[in-house]
Structure formats: C-alpha cells, structure tokens
C-alpha cells in the first residue's frame, strides 16, 4: 500500500469532500497560496480559489463566529487554527456559539463546522506554542473531539468529521505532519466514536492519544522484550468515546496506564480514569496510572522541555509500578 505523510492524508480528506460539496470551504490564515503553516493545504488554493480556500486575517474568534454563521445558512466550514495555543482567542465562538446552537434552538439548525488545530511540543516552540487543550472541549456538551494518531485514522476521521452535522474539534499534532503512514487510494471513512487497538496484549492496557500512541508503541516493543505484553488502545475520538472497546481491554488486562501529552492535572486522563474506576472497578488489580506533562508551562530549551513533557521512560515506569502491585 502507498505511504503518505500525515499532512497529505488530511489534505486528501479535505480535497475529496470539497470536490463533492461546493458549499464546503476552508478558512484560516496562511491556508491560501502559502499552503498552510504546516503545509497541509498545499495546492488547494490553486484548485479551489478564493472563498473556498480563504486566507483570513488573524482573528480566530471572528472567523469561527463567521463559520457558525455560514454553517447555519447552508454551508459547511473547516477552520484551521494552526496552533492550538491560539484557540483561547476563539473560546466564545466555540463554546458559547457553536456548541450551543443546536440545543438552544431546539434542533432548528445544527452547526456543521470542523476546527482543525495542531497541538504539542517537543520542538522547542516554548510556552505559547506547545500546548494541548483537548480536555477543555471534552467538557463542553455540544462539541465533538477527535484526535487521530495516524494518517489512516486522520483521513477517515476527518471525512466523517466534515460530514458530521455537529461542531468537531479535530486535533492534529505538529510532530506527526511529516510522518508517513499507509493510506489506501480508495475512499473510506472511519466513524467517530470508534476506538482502535493499535497493538494487542494481555498484561496491561495503555490508553494513548495522538502522538503519545507512538511513544506507547515504542514502549510496548521494549516491554515485549521484558516479557510484558502491553495492549495499546487509541480512543481516536474523545467525544463520542468508545467506552465499550476501552473497557473490554481493561477487563482483559486488569491494569491501566493512560498517556496524553497534556498536563496530568485536569487532563483527559482523569476523565478516562474515573470512567474505568466507575464501570470496571472489580476488574482492576492495581490503581490507574496517568502519564502526561508535568504541571508546569512548556519551557524552551531541550533539557527543560524533555523534563516536563512525557517520555517513553515515563510510560515504562508507570507500567512497571502497576505490575509490581
């Protein structure tokens, strides 16, 4: 099968859907001729032109508010906010407008928008360009949250997100853009709310999101050499969440480590851990462990950034600790 970059998979999903729907558009600063800050929309402006692939001023709140207005009057919108760190600028449009309309208007209209944004560190981009906020949006009823870890998942999930009638936060990761993955030539979709077992195992369940899936797979390979069989579960979407598949894995292995790049405190790991403790308590042979960034802003130099952000070693440590119990 052909291998393409994560960014190309995302691009293909947008191109395929935009060729089908003339009222679907992409907006964001630098998405036009520049091709996007992470080169995701390269070539799209040449194909679709103004208004369909529309450069915007730097006005996150306004452009998502605009997207809501288009979405409730017959269009579909993809808004690219290149760094997730810029999303706080748009919180009103996302939380008070997009998330609320279908509900507060009792179903008169829905808001079919996708907000694509890239999170994450490990690139010395420092405090205001390295953050992960997915849990903020998990907390807002009315929003859906998708976090693919491979190009295959990204393309299939993005196509579903685009045709979904509700607002979706589609979280990409800066480090994954150049990574290559097998992606079929033929069209396919992946439904939201379906988790994926990235590696089967029986001794411990490692639930990981986004780039952490790759750290978890590396850690799992090392664990195999120690005779520990880890199962790596990728939720792929946090809302809707495939609780069934995740709990199935927990009931099989009886031990859980949850890994995300966001800070541990208040991170999605707490939400997932509470669900497991509530619904699979009798199956647990050890406390649930969470691995994430330490609770400090993400600093600039490599030596400090690596200290704060989660590593393979952190995952291995967590697994070792709960296997001793």
């Amino acid at each position: 099968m052909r291998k393409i970059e994560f960014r190309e998979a995302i691009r293909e999903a947008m191109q395929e859907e935009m060729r089908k729907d003339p009222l679907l558009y992409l907006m964001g600063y630098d998405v036009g001729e520049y091709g996007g800050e992470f080169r995701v929309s390269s070539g799209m402006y040449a194909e679709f032109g103004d208004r369909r692939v529309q450069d915007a001023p730097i006005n996150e709140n306004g452009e998502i508010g605009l997207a809501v207005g288009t979405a409730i009057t017959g269009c579909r919108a993809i808004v690219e906010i290149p760094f997730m760190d810029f999303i706080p600028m748009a919180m009103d449009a996302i939380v008070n407008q997009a998330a609320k309309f279908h509900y507060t208007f009792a179903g008169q209209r829905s808001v079919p928008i996708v907000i694509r944004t890239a999170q994450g560190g490990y690139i010395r981009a420092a405090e205001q360009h390295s953050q992960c906020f997915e849990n903020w949006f998990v907390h807002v009823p009315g929003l859906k949250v998708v976090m693919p870890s491979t190009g295959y998942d990204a393309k299939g999930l993005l196509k579903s997100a685009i045709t979904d009638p509700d607002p979706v936060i589609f979280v990409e990761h800066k480090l994954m853009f150049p990574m290559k993955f097998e992606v079929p030539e033929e069209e396919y979709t992946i439904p939201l709310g379906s988790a994926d077992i990235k590696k089967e195992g029986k001794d411990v369940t490692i639930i990981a999101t986004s780039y952490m899936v790759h750290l978890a797979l590396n850690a799992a390979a090392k664990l195999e050499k120690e005779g520990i069989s880890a199962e790596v579960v990728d939720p792929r979407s946090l809302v809707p969440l495939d609780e069934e598949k995740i709990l199935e894995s927990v009931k099989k292995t009886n031990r859980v480590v949850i890994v995300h790049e966001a800070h541990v405190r208040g991170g999605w790991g707490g939400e997932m851990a509470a669900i497991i403790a509530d619904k699979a308590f009798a199956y647990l042979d050890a406390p649930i462990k969470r691995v994430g960034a330490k609770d400090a802003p993400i600093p600039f130099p490599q030596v400090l950034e690596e200290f704060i952000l989660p590593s393979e070693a952190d995952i291995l440590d967590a697994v070792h600790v709960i296997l001793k119990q």
Partner: protein
Amino acid sequence: MNLKEPILEIEKDVVLKLYETMLKIRMFESREKDLIQTEQEGFAHSYVGEEAIAAGVCAALRKDDYITSTHRGHGHMIAKGGEMGKMYGELYGKVDGYCMGKSGSLHIADFELGVLGANGIVSGGIPIAVGAAYSSQMRKSDQVSAAFFGEGAMNQGLFHEAANMASIYHLPVVFVVEVNHWQCGVRYETVYHRDVINNIAVRAQSYGFPGININGNDVVEVFKTAKTAVDHARSGKGPYLIACYTYRIETHFMGDIDIRPKEEVDEWRKSDPINDLEKRMITEGIISGSDIEDTKVRVSELVEESIEFARQSPAPKPESALEHVYAKYP
C-alpha cells in the same frame, strides 16, 4: 421634535405597518415587564424606547434576509415577523415556544424568518451575521444580513474582527448600532472617546465602508436609511453601518435598579418614537385619531391572546433537557 419632510413619499401601507410594528413591540415589552416579575422566571431585557430601529430596519429587509440580535432581541424578532404567542411561549419556557422553551429570551430564534438568534453574548451575533452573508455570497444569493447590537458591544474585539472581514470579503452586511446611551450601568460617554461619542459611525471608516449617524427615534429616518443600506449591500457594494441614536427607557433588565437621574429618562420620553409617528401621521392626514385608538385596541387584544396561548402551552418534560445536545450521536 421637528417635523421633517412629509412621510407621504413612503407608501401609506408601509407607514401604517411601521406604526403597528412599533406598537406591537411596545405592548409586548410592557406586558412582559409585569409577567417577568410575577409569572415567568429568568430575565428579560426591555426594548422600550428603541422600537423605531427594529421596525425601520426590518421593514427594509426581505423575509429571506438574515438578522442576528442580542439579549435585547424581542423587538427585532417581532419586527421580522415573529409570532407573539410563540415568543411569549418561549419566555414562559413552554413547549410551544420558538425553541421549545429551551432557550428563553436570550437566544430566541426562527430560521424560517431569517432570525439567526438573539444572543446572550453582546457581540456574539455580529460575526454570525457576517457568516450568513459569506454563505449568501457562496450560494450566489442576493440575501442580505443585518446585525443588531449596542454601542457597548461595539467595543468588543469581535465587532472589529467581523467588520473587517465583512469589508475585505465585500459582504452584504448591514451593521446596525443601537446607541441607547447605557451599557448596562455605565454611561456610553465614559467608554467612547469624546471625539467619537456623537459620531460612532466614524468607526466604519477604518474598514472602508460607509457609516452614518441618524436619529434612531425617527422611524421614517431609520427606514429610509436602512433601505439605502440594504440596497447598497444587496447590489454588491459591500457593508454599511448605521449608528442609530436612541435611549433605553427601561432598566438594563426588567426589574433592575435604575441609577439614572429621573430627569434624564423623562427628557428622553419626550422623544418617544411612537408618539412622534402618531403626531406626524395625524398632521399629514395619513390616519385619524380614532384609527389610532382602534389599532391600539386591536394590538392590545392580540398581545393578550398571545399571553393566554403561552400560559396554556404545556411545560416541557424534564427528560427533554437531554435532547438536541447533538444533531447526531455518536
């Protein structure tokens, strides 16, 4: 109030409709002031004194044109054709309300009428109106959008972002600023530079589209200006801004404390838009005194029927609180 040029150059039907719309809003809001403090829950924000703006602008719009408004949104909804029974229904939180009772006053909407929602965030509706105009452009439609908001909201960054995008994308949007002098409990003169307070429309210049300051209590002036603005937008000339100077006769929300000097409020009552139009219509022989009384009785009866309709409507079932969170789940 000075008599302006005769209003006969606007068709008599249009003038009578403007009058009736303003009356409907006035009576709706006046009755609501009692109901919100006795039979209803939550909060309502009175549009009394500002009726000419909603009536005048909406009369210049088509049914399929879009509007967004704010927490003070009952007037715009009525002027756009909203049924008062379904509006009261919503304010009572009943299932026959426009949003099945789920929204209440703040986000009342009817997409069939092009009302894309009142909004509880004062500038929240402005980019949404601009988005509806972007959509209109994408669909090659000649629909126009109007965004209603207060001068308080105009200081939020969202206004700037929305106005700028409307201008650079050359969108058919009319921005209607209701300069009602009070930003909740703060005088607007303290949040605008002295060089701007009597010329709020000047802000449009920074985006390169026309802006005009008018007397927002003169429904004829509002209507004529709105027609110019709407035609400008509909004919592809881009956005337009109208700063309508008016006064918020009632308090920020119905039942709120009033820190304004009584003399100030009384002075503004003398410029009541409805009284003004009545006088002019009689002077110019458009309507007789008894016709005015008949209209008032008719509208008053309609308002009472609407209230009764809302009272009789059932309350929503508790479990319905979990409906509509998503259009599709998972």
